[in-house]
């Protein structure tokens, strides 16, 4: 048995577990059965009690029924009712019999006896007596309404019963009938109470049994948990201890230590098996190690042999590498040549020359080199590689230099010479030079020389061939470069011209569909800048057209016109439109560029005609206004004169009309004069007869005149100091200016008030302020106040006449004197006009700077 346990891990613990489970199961079954039986007994007892109560109630009902029936007979003589009462006897007896059959206790027995006694008394005494009494009443032997005990005693049955002692009788109390009835009622009630208390008891017992059942269930669960804690955990701990010992041993084995697991190896379970296998593995490992060490020695010997072979291979490789280097050198040489050719083909500017000479030096294995260009009138320009200035000068100036000789001979010149010992090289050596002329392919003149120098070896045949062929290539390239530069210069010139004109231009080349535009186009359409800054050169004509069309207010006109550009229906007229909601007015026309009868391209020109359009508009507006202004007084004069000529009018009307005609004629005259003044001033043809003018006395004179003509206004002149206020001004025009300002001040303060004139000196100017306390000017009108024919549009000013030219004339006069005029005003409070004109001294200095 003990051995069986040791053979497998966990067998012992599983055995304990199974044993406990079996005991627990059996115990549970027994307890369950026991408690279940107890519960079953409780329930059947409850059922029995319930039945007793039911029957008790039925019994009570039966008796009550019999009583009612007998009363019915007595009261109404109903024989059927009596029979019904009698018939109850049997049913009553059956119920009593049932109670007798289920007697279990002493109380039950007493109760059954009580029932039987009552039954006998009721059916053997009460009912027969009642019957007899009833018969007697029907026969007329008895007449009283209620039962009289005396009468009852006289009945034969009653007497028999008293004699037999069944009924108790005493002369004081009569027949005792109530005694037995009270007794049975008490008995019934007692029995019922007993049943109820029995029921309570059984319920209590049932609850107790349920409690026991629950306790048993919890207890079995708890005991199971305790078992697991007590047995399973210590077992696992023990087993894992063994396994961890094994794992520590394997760690140590890994580190190469010797491990002894002999105590565990004798075990019979899995740990024992594992330990034995582990031991075997450790031994195998030791064997393998020994084997490997031997093998290693062998391999080292082989490796030494290999190293020897490798060295041999390396020597061979070096040889190959040298050959490869040679090939690469050749390749490099070719690559240089290619690059050189490419450089010559692709470069289009002088920046290529240093690169060219550098490559040429590399190809020919030279030390230094130079490209010497022959300029017009015998000048030279040199691009050199490794050549210092002194050497360059020597080369160009020395009569014996190869270059000079080549220039004279116009052919290739070689030279070789031993170099002096002061040269950096530590040994005497030869220097080989060559100068190869480059001819212009068009007229065979020499345009440049290639100059190369190398040491040690002379130029080989191949190198000379290279140089000569390169010279030919170079001559072609130089020509091409020259042409290209010329073209670029021309193109730049054209671009500059196109950029500096005011018109915006788009040119579409027919052959390539390339589009060229000038800078003014971007200024005219800043929208283009946004879309074209990144993809400028790729935009097609249609994209240009579309972008421009979005800004055009008359988009349809623009599209219709431009649609015709590349068709036979080429537009020869021009079209005008506005862009960006009238911000600018443009005129557009197109031209075909035709070279030798073939149309090469189409030119679209945009001209900014905003100012022309605006001037046109202003002119027409001016004429229209003038005509309107003239027509109004003319209408009056024409109308009133017609009435006077053609109608008979009373005298007062005639006088009034004449007065009106006179006033209107005067107005017309003013208007024409003012109009002519404005025109003259605007055209710049107004001549100012300027002189040194002290304005204070002039203003005082005018003030006196206005003061006399208006009683409602008070005039005041304020001066800042006693110095004279001298201007360089036209006296007549200055008077016109002041007259306009003063008459405005009077006119626009119809309710009178103070009119103040302030004179002040400033650094270089004199200011004149005219201040009134009149109706003032609404702020929205201030901006347009100096516009021609502008009249403040409200009911206050409507009453006051005027040509609408007074202030524009003032402005023109002030400007004519290099001054400024401005106005400040608060509506209903008054206005202040300020004129600032350069002082006499300052004006003279400015006027004649050259002669001073």
């Amino acid at each position: 048995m003990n051995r069986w346990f040791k053979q497998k891990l966990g067998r012992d613990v599983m055995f304990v577990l199974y044993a406990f489970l079996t005991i627990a199961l059996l115990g549970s079954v027994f307890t369950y059965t026991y408690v279940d039986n107890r519960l079953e007994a409780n329930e059947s007892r409850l059922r029995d009690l319930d039945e007793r109560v039911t029957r008790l109630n039925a019994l009570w009902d039966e008796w009550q029924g019999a009583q009612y029936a007998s009363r019915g007979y007595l009261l109404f003589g109903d024989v059927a009712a009596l029979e019904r009462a009698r018939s109850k006897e049997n049913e009553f007896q059956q119920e009593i019999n049932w109670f007798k059959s289920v007697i279990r206790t002493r109380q039950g027995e007493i109760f059954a006896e009580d029932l039987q006694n009552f039954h006998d008394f009721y059916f053997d005494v009460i009912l027969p007596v009642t019957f007899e009494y009833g018969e007697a009443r029907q026969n007329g032997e008895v007449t009283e309404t209620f039962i009289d005990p005396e009468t009852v005693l006289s009945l034969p049955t009653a007497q028999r019963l008293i004699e037999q002692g069944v009924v108790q009788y005493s002369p004081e109390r009569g027949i005792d009938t109530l005694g037995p009835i009270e007794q049975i009622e008490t008995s019934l009630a007692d029995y019922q109470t007993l049943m109820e208390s029995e029921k309570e008891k059984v319920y209590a017992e049932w609850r107790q049994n349920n409690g026991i059942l629950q306790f048993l269930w919890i207890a079995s669960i708890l005991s199971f948990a305790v078992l697991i804690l007590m047995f399973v955990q210590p077992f696992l701990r023990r087993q894992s201890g063994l396994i961890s010992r094994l794992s520590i041993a394997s760690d140590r084995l890994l580190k190469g230590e010797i491990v002894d697991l002999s105590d565990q190896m004798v075990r019979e379970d899995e740990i024992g098996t594992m330990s034995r296998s582990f031991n075997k593995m450790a031994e195998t490992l030791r064997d393998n190690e020994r084997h490997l060490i031997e093998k290693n020695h062998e391999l080292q010997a082989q490796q030494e042999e290999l190293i020897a072979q490798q060295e041999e291979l390396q020597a061979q490789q070096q040889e190959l590498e040298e050959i490869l280097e040679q090939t690469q050198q050749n390749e490099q040489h070719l690559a240089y040549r290619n690059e050189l050719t490419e450089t010559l083909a692709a470069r289009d500017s002088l920046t290529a020359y240093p690169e060219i000479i550098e490559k040429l030096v590399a190809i020919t294995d030279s030390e230094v080199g130079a490209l010497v260009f022959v300029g017009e009138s015998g000048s030279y320009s040199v691009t050199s590689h490794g050549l210092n200035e002194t050497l360059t000068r020597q080369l160009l100036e020395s009569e014996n230099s190869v270059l000079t000789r080549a220039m004279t001979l116009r052919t290739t010149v070689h030279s070789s010479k031993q170099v002096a010992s002061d040269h950096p090289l530590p040994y005497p050596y030869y220097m080989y030079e060559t100068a190869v002329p480059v001819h212009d392919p068009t007229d065979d003149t020499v345009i440049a020389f290639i100059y190369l120098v190398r040491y040690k070896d002379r130029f080989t045949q191949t190198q000379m061939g290279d140089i000569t062929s390169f010279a030919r290539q170079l001559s072609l390239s130089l020509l091409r470069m020259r042409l290209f530069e010329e073209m670029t210069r021309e193109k730049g010139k054209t671009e500059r011209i196109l950029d500096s004109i005011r018109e915006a231009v788009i040119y579409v080349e027919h052959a390539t569909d390339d589009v060229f535009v000038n800078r003014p186009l971007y200024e005219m359409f800043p929208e283009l800048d946004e879309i074209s800054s990144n993809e400028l050169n790729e935009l097609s004509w249609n994209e240009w057209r579309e972008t421009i069309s979005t800004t055009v207010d008359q988009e349809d006109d623009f599209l219709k016109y431009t649609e015709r550009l590349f068709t036979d229906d080429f537009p020869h007229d021009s079209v005008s439109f506005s862009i960006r909601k009238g911000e600018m007015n443009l005129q557009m026309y197109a031209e075909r560029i035709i070279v030798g009868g073939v149309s090469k391209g189409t030119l679209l020109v945009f001209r900014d005609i905003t100012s022309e359009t605006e001037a046109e508009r202003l002119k027409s507006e001016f004429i229209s206004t003038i005509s309107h202004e003239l027509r109004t007084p003319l209408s009056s004069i024409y109308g009133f004169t017609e009435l006077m000529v053609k109608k008979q009018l009373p005298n007062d009307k005639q006088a009034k009309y004449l007065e009106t005609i006179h006033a209107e004629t005067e107005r017309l005259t003013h208007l024409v004069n003012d109009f002519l003044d404005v025109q003259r001033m605007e055209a710049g043809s107004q001549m100012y007869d300027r002189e040194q003018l002290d304005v204070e006395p002039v203003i005082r004179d005018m003030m006196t005149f206005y003061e006399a003509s208006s009683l409602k206004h008070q005039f005041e002149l304020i001066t800042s100091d006693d110095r004279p206020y001298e201007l360089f001004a036209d006296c007549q025009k200055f008077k016109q200016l002041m007259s306009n300002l003063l008459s405005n001040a009077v006119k626009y303060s119809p309710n009178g008030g103070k009119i103040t004139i302030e004179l002040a000196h400033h650094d270089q100017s004199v200011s004149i302020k005219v201040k009134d306390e009149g109706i003032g000017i609404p702020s929205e009108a201030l901006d347009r106040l100096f516009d021609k024919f502008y009249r403040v549009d409200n009911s206050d000013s409507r009453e006051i006449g005027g040509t609408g030219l007074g202030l524009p004339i003032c402005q023109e006069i002030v400007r004519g004197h290099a001054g400024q005029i401005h106005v400040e005003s608060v509506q209903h409070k008054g206005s202040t006009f300020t004129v600032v004109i350069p002082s006499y001294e300052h004006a003279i200095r400015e006027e004649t700077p050259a002669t001073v």
Partner: protein
Amino acid sequence: MVKILLAEDEEVLRMLVLDTLEDEGYDIDEAPDGLEAYRLIEQNEYDLVIVDHMMPGMTGLEVIEKVRKLPGRQHTKVMMLTAKSQQSDRDCANEIGVDYFISKPFSPLELVKIIGGIVN
């Protein structure tokens, strides 16, 4: 009696037309600007409305444009008396609903004849 409204900002011209027409026995209301003219037309039914074009507040054309939108004023006869006499001004007035167009300067006696023809 024939009722006429005269809207004209120039007092002198207003006097001229008024004097001439009153002699003919017309009942005439006066308006010195566009706003007043509109207010009067809104309140009264006139046989003829004479308006100047250039008036402060509201131009004659603006008055007529608004008047034509009033109920019962679509067919009120309107005469424009204006210093603007170009064809474009006439076309514009015609489009807005001006029935007669007289350009300044005008003959008052001619005007009387024309008005007589309109109202009778």
